[in-house]
């Protein structure tokens, strides 16, 4: 947009785009809900049975079915669900008997904490490795990094988790075992954010902090390995792309030192696509840690969602899907914003 366009017009346009964004996001959400909802209803699991158990009488069964509102037509159920969601009511979970919102504030931070540390590890190692491999394209270092990264694509997470536990916890005793903290530290610090590290730091309880970090280390490292694989690989490929560009030669013509050519010139433009890649793998870690959560007894959202799904606990499934979807959309939008900040061409 030309800088001298009338202010009112610019405002109008950005308002339009914000409005458009809200509408699109809203529609995406509703689509998300609709699909989850209808899948949930065709799953051949009877949610009523999850509530009343298999020995209930027909009367109890019918009463529960009405109480759950499952006697109404599907479309009606869906609309009343969406209506409730817009009023901030995610409903009650069948499998925990609590409000889904309350459950989510309990389980989501656990996953968030693990995934965040995972992505930090993934980015912290993946980006330099990728850049280094690209700078040394074709050398044996490059080959090793490539194979290492591809391994991250190929190893089943749960397998690695179990092996990791067996080796580092049981065998070597380097890390604490499953769970978020040692059982005796559990509940010592008030849950302000739900993130154990943050809560412990806020409470100034460093024993809990170090213990939590000790527990977090292995699962986060494993998640980190998976995101590292993807990030290193994409970084390498982006870097190769850039290193093949003319402007890199221009920088060399100027006599710029090699490390500066790589980090100061070639790396800059790839920050933007990298952010998208990182955002996506962060989202993937958030949603994809079910297996790791299972293995590490991590009370996270992946586990919650799986258990809910297998019990046809639709409110919980929908609530969790909504949260994950929201995170996904949020991360997407955030990387869009960063994109705009970092890439002058997109302004």
């Amino acid at each position, binding site marked *: 947009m030309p800088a001298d366009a009338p202010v009112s017009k610019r405002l109008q346009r950005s308002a339009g785009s914000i409005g458009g964004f809200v509408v699109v996001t809203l529609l995406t959400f509703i689509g998300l809900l609709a699909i989850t909802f209808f899948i949930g209803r065709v799953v051949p699991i009877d949610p009523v049975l*999850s509530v009343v158990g298999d020995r209930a009488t027909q009367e109890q069964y019918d009463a529960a079915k009405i109480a759950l509102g499952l006697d109404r037509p599907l479309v009606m159920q869906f609309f009343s669900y969406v209506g409730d969601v817009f009023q901030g009511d995610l409903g009650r979970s069948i499998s925990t008997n609590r409000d889904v919102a309350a459950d989510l504030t309990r389980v989501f931070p656990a996953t968030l904490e693990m995934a965040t540390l995972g992505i930090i590890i993934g980015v912290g190692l993946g980006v330099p490795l990728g850049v280094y491999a690209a700078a040394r394209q074709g050398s044996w270092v490059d080959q090793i990094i490539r194979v290492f990264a591809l391994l991250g694509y190929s190893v089943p997470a749960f397998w690695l988790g179990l092996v990791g536990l067996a080796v580092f916890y049981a065998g070597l005793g380097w890390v604490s075992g499953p769970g978020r903290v040692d059982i005796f530290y559990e509940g010592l610090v008030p849950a302000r954010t739900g993130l154990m590290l943050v809560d412990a730091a806020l409470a100034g309880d460093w024993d809990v902090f170090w213990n939590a970090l000790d527990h977090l280390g292995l699962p986060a490292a494993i998640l980190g390995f998976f995101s590292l694989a993807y990030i290193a690989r994409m970084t390498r490929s982006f870097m190769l792309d850039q290193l093949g560009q003319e402007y890199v030669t221009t920088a060399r013509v100027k006599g710029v030192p090699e490390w500066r050519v790589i980090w100061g010139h070639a790396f800059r433009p790839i920050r933007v696509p990298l952010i998208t890649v990182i955002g996506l793998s962060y989202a993937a870690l958030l949603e994809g840690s079910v297996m790791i959560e299972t293995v590490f007894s991590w009370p996270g959202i992946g*586990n*919650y969602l799986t258990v809910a799904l297998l019990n046809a606990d639709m409110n919980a499934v929908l609530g969790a899907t909504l949260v994950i979807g929201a995170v996904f959309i949020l991360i997407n939008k955030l990387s869009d914003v960063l994109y705009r900040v970092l890439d002058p061409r997109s302004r």
Partner: protein
Amino acid sequence: ETPDDVLVVAQNIDDIVAIDPAQAYEFTSGELVTNLYDRLVQYDAEDTTTLAAGLASDWTADDEAKTITFTLRDGATFASGNEVTAEDVVYSFGRVIKLNLTPAFILAQLGWTAENVDDMVTADGNTVTVKYEGDFSSNFVLNVLASRPASIVDSKLVMEHEVDGDMGNAWLNENAAGSGPFKLDSYSPAQMVRMSANESYFNGAPEIDSVIIRHVAEAATQQLLLEQGDIDLARNLTPDQIASLDSEEIKVETFPQAAVHFLSFNQKTESLTDPAVWEAARYLVDYTGMTDTIINGQMEVHQAFWPKGFPGSYDETPFSYDPEKAKEILDEAGIETPITVSLDVINAAPFTDMAQSLQASFADAGINFEILPGTGAQVITKYRERTHQAMLLYWGPDFMDPHSNAKAFAYNSDNSDDSYAATTTWRNAWAVPEDMNEETMAALAEADAETRLEMYQDLQKKVQENSPIVIMFQAAYQVAMADNVEGYVNGATSDFVYYRLVDKQ
């Protein structure tokens, strides 16, 4: 290492839906209720097979008048400090019936309804009078009153937390209001349960200060934790893990269970209706092959519906793996093989292994199973709708009276689609012969304890000989624990798991 005064248990607790005794119906919630609440009469940790005095110090039964009068114990208090009163008992029973949640049917057998329960259960000073309707003996009634939903809750405390007329249901699903040996400190679903000792428990304070039950879904993880000494007790190890535990510091205890495992044929499946098929099936199960290997220590061969070790059990095991004989039976009856049917099974060890073993041994006689693994909820859904063909499942009694199982395995008065009954018979669409239906009802009404048990044995024999339900095993429960843990008691069902006597030297 765990501290001396705390017992740390690793267990899969994500089955818990509710911990309110009026709603709790899952295995794990049953354990919690047992440790957090008391009943008028109860099976206790010292001897899980005899009915003992609970909150009632004594009682008198009048079979003629169908009445039992209980006298409450002196000085029993709830964890809140409130005294246990007769009003609490009346409230608790009425609450179960009025809320009418899943386990309500157990009490409802006594002829109680939301309308009449206030008349059927009445308080007078420190006595409670319980009336019942129906043709059964007071022994049966006492067993019912020893069951989980008959737990006594602290009515004052509960009423304080009532919302929208839920009789405190929502609150009781996050808290406890009982008089049991432990009080609930915190419960977070699929994460952990903390209980601490009730120092003023009428039967003596527990040896240990607190119990922490931690949710660990993976068996391998439980094993790791136990071997590392980070937990004291692992509740969900598999037989093979147990067999391979070789640490000096770990011991294993085995507890026989009341649950029976069976293979059943839905009679809506044409090819499974011939009694010859039922009979042949009994020779096609590799009973000992399984108990020696995949379910070693976890199950033992038992072929009747009431478990061994309980009054009225029938311990004969006339059938063994004999494919030749099975083929003969099928040939004689002119059954055309191969028969191909689906076999639904819960998707977890050891059930899928058992299903595969059945698949292999039945294939010998031309009965081919297509295994359909599913989650518990999925399998149950199908079972209730009677859309399965063959089913591998188990059944645990709701309360420790043979009637609980007789009704499930030998009684089906109306096999029509719209008269649902949560019994093995109805759900397999097996129209039980009329004489068996009658015998089941007669046994229930029989006053003489000895005769009554004989009648149940006869019923078991009949079901064993001729029914589409092949009862194969009785469960046992193996618990691995640190060497210094003493006094863990695990009765025949999850209602009989007691932490009260646990001590760590």
